[in-house]
């Protein structure tokens, strides 16, 4: 019990610390792949610190909602990140929320960010919000289908249980899991506003989604939102790791949290690299192709769920 509480606190801190690092790593690898030296690994920390110190410039008709959204969003994503077992499944909050609740938490963050985008009454906020909600409308079902196919296999949606079960090794290699993995990766790309869905680096109004919503933000608010985005990236990496390759993670009964931590770092590095490679090797797609992209993800995940019945008589 005590251990689980300590683990939980450690994890909350850990995700907070690691998130900018992961983003930095991705940027670095991308730069190297493009043949640039690229920024330092710690650049994201510096950016956040600078933003935090800056004053906030608010639009005249910004409401209290606009000012509180960054905190709500950051908290929600932070909490969600804290729920994904990274180095041990023995977390105090584990029973509080399962995978579905976690998805819903991310939904909450998105909901409020979309509202904030519409608060100042500029056209770009509207563009961002509407597109974001459209993307979410397809990403969420896909995500839940992934959950479904995993749950059909594992008969649970509690992440700790899933990780434990997967580590048990009784699962083996499965077509459906592969499909679910692909679907989850596609969703992750969409949700984190990465290429080809969106480009965090761009400010070309007509193509941007996430950036359009946060256009009016500045100073500490912007810092929180950037931080939240980094946390989200980390969260998805951790989620994929926890569900599909949880090996090395500690459980209440056996395994060492430190080893779990090291393995997690390794997994993050790998994930970051993979993302960087993927992003450099593909171009951004038109906003209205996104529907097809995520629809594909949805179908894949559904297929995964169905394949399960075929492959195994559950």
């Amino acid at each position: 019990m005590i251990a689980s509480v300590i683990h939980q606190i450690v994890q909350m801190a850990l995700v907070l610390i690691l998130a900018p690092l992961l983003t930095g790593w991705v940027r670095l690898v991308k730069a190297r792949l493009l043949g640039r030296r690229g920024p330092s690994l710690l650049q994201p920390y510096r950016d956040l610190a600078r933003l935090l110190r800056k004053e906030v410039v608010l639009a005249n008709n910004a409401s209290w909602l606009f000012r509180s959204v960054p905190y709500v969003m950051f908290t929600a994503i932070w909490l969600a990140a804290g729920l994904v077992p990274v180095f041990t499944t023995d977390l105090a909050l584990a029973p509080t929320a399962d995978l579905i609740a976690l998805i819903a938490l991310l939904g909450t963050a998105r909901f409020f960010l979309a509202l904030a985008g519409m608060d100042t009454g500029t056209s770009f906020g509207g563009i961002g919000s509407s597109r974001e909600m459209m993307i979410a409308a397809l990403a969420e079902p896909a995500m839940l289908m992934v959950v479904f196919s995993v749950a059909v296999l594992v008969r649970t949606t509690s992440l700790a249980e899933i990780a434990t079960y997967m580590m048990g090794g009784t699962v083996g290699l499965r077509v459906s899991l592969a499909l679910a993995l692909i679907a989850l990766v596609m969703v992750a790309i969409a949700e984190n506003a990465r290429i080809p869905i969106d480009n965090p680096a761009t400010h070309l109004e007509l193509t941007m989604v996430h950036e359009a919503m946060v256009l009016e933000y500045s100073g500490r608010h912007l810092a929180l939102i950037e931080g939240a985005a980094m946390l989200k990236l980390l969260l998805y990496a951790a989620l994929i790791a926890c569900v599909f390759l949880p090996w090395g993670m500690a459980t209440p009964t056996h395994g060492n949290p430190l080893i779990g931590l090291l393995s997690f770092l390794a997994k993050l590095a790998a994930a970051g690299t993979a993302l960087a490679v993927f992003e450099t090797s593909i171009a951004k797609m038109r906003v209205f192709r996104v529907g097809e992209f995520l629809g594909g993800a949805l179908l894949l995940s559904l297929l995964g769920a169905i394949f399960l019945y075929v492959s195994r008589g559950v």
Partner: protein
Amino acid sequence: MGNILTISPHAFRGFVAVTVPLVALLALFALAVVGVAARRAPWVGSVVYGGTATVCAVVALWAGFALAGRSGAETITLPMGLPWIGAHLRADGLSAFFLLVVNFGGVTASLFGWGYERAQAGGHGSGHGHGDSGPVLPFFPLFLAGMSLVLLADDAFTFLVSWEFMSLTSWLLVLSTHREPDTSEAARLYLIMASAGTACLLLAFGLLASGAGDYQFDAIRQHAPTAGAAAMVVLLILLGAGSKAGLVPLHVWLPLAHPAAPSHVSALMSGVMTKVAIYAMVRVLFDLLGEPVWWWGGALMIVGAVTAVMGVLYALMQDDVKRLLACSTIENIGVIVIALGLALVFKASHTPVIAALALSAALLHVVNHSLFKSLLFFVAGAILTATGSRDLNRLGGLIHRMPVTAVLALIGAAAISALPPLNGFVGEWLLFQAILNAPALPEWSLKIGIAVVGAAVALAAALAAACFVRLYGIAFLGRPRSPEAAGAGEVGVAMQAGMMIPAVLCVVLGVLPTFVIRLFEPAVRAMVEAGPFDDRSYQPWIWLAPTSAIGNSYNGLIMLAAIAALSIPLVLVIHRWASDKVRWSIAWGCGHVEPDPTALSQYSASSFAQPIRRAFGGTVFNAQDRVEMPEPGDTRPARLTVRWTDPAWAYLFTPIRSAVNWLADRADVLQFLTIRSYLTLMFTALVVVLALVAVVRS
């Protein structure tokens, strides 16, 4: 007809059991009389609404105690209704639960309505037709009485009488705005659809009663109908109760009629009356019809899934606030029906615990939807009172002018979008837990089908979130789109209170859902012979951990605490050590500096829906956007016009209507014939019948 004048054996205990709602019903009728008799008196509104609120509160409390106390349900027979059987009233767990929902809605609605009508009467109202409206007062209590009576009815006749009485009174309430252009069409469609539904129920009960040889529910319970008859009953119930609940494609009246009524009535119709329809489904499918067959549930799930997705898509197309809310009701009903279908399926496959889980999800969503849908309709009423408009494209920026309403509306929008830790999410969570148990089913079609249904539910939920971001963002955020919106002011205390109560409950139920689930556990137990928490392993009471969901659990309270524990320090730390300086300036908007006074550059309701319209609408509604872009140098603003058609109208109702008209035109010729032709008709009839007789004999 022995017991016409004598009261049934358990008379006394029965009387004790049902006496409170009976007295309450009488009180409601009395209030209606007052509403008619003293219609000129200045105090009448306060008396009727106050009285209704009190009576409903009493009944709600009574129902709550009946549920908590697990009090037995006796039947009482009144010497009314069908002569030889009388009117049977009974309040078992299920009835009591729905009585609680209905009458609680009644309390808030009367509270809000009191303030609303005063606001309408006082100047504000003029300008949008409520100025000289028909009478509401007499029919408002009658409507509530009708709904309660449906829930208490224990024989087919009483049930149908009160069912149709409910439709009738709500129709009259809709007609109270009869001076407005669209009302009469809406009201007509409503009453016709409602009566068609009643006709279906009539046939269904006829079938059930023919099996039992009696109209009493007890007798019907005893005699399970044959498979064929049962199938027909299921179909008829889907049509009958479905037309009232708003299942696609029988939903067409709903987005027209619900908004036409005064807002507090809309809240009742959308938030509560649809639940009465759900009650009818549960009562017949789970209680009266005996052992279910798996495909019943399958049918319910398919219809529900279609309804859920279509409903929310309709909602996304609407620009009228109340119409949007009505459409979102269709979606929520779809979700509830899916849950019911799951419960049936699991009941049929003899896994009662999972059935209990699904049914709990359904009933919990019934409670939740009644809460946040009433809340949102009240908000719509507040907006209407404050701005005189229901058109999203004439609203905006209300968060600055109606601060209280804005907060409550935000709670409502978040709750209906199923965001944790609010109540909407708990319902969805339970539903998904039930869906995840699909592998436990024997039928392959169901295993796979339920996965698809799950996807549909998720899609509906995500679209609902989009829909309410749109509603809240357009109405409350941004800049005002019309002078009325710019000049709006906060509404009165009564209306605020009416909104406050459901809003608070949305939070409470989200944090402590187990309370209400425990409350209706007896109802669930009665329907599926199991409770959602049977033999649960380890959770103390604040944990929501149904047995069937293996090791899955959710705890709204801890989640709320965690959010608080994380966010409050965060705010403090940042403001203490980082910076707390703020500078106000004009919105930047990518160099588009000077915000134009008309606020036309903002995203409008229809432009917000455009991506989703483009993703889904093209195929479902063959929606077409047309943008009129003026010549370069021309200063006219560009105009976006959206055209879309409802398939239910295009392929079902318009053909029916035109067919009737065609036939009527043909028949009408008979009015204008000569006497000779009429004689000829008569003569032909005679000769034909004579010839018939001759033929028959030989």
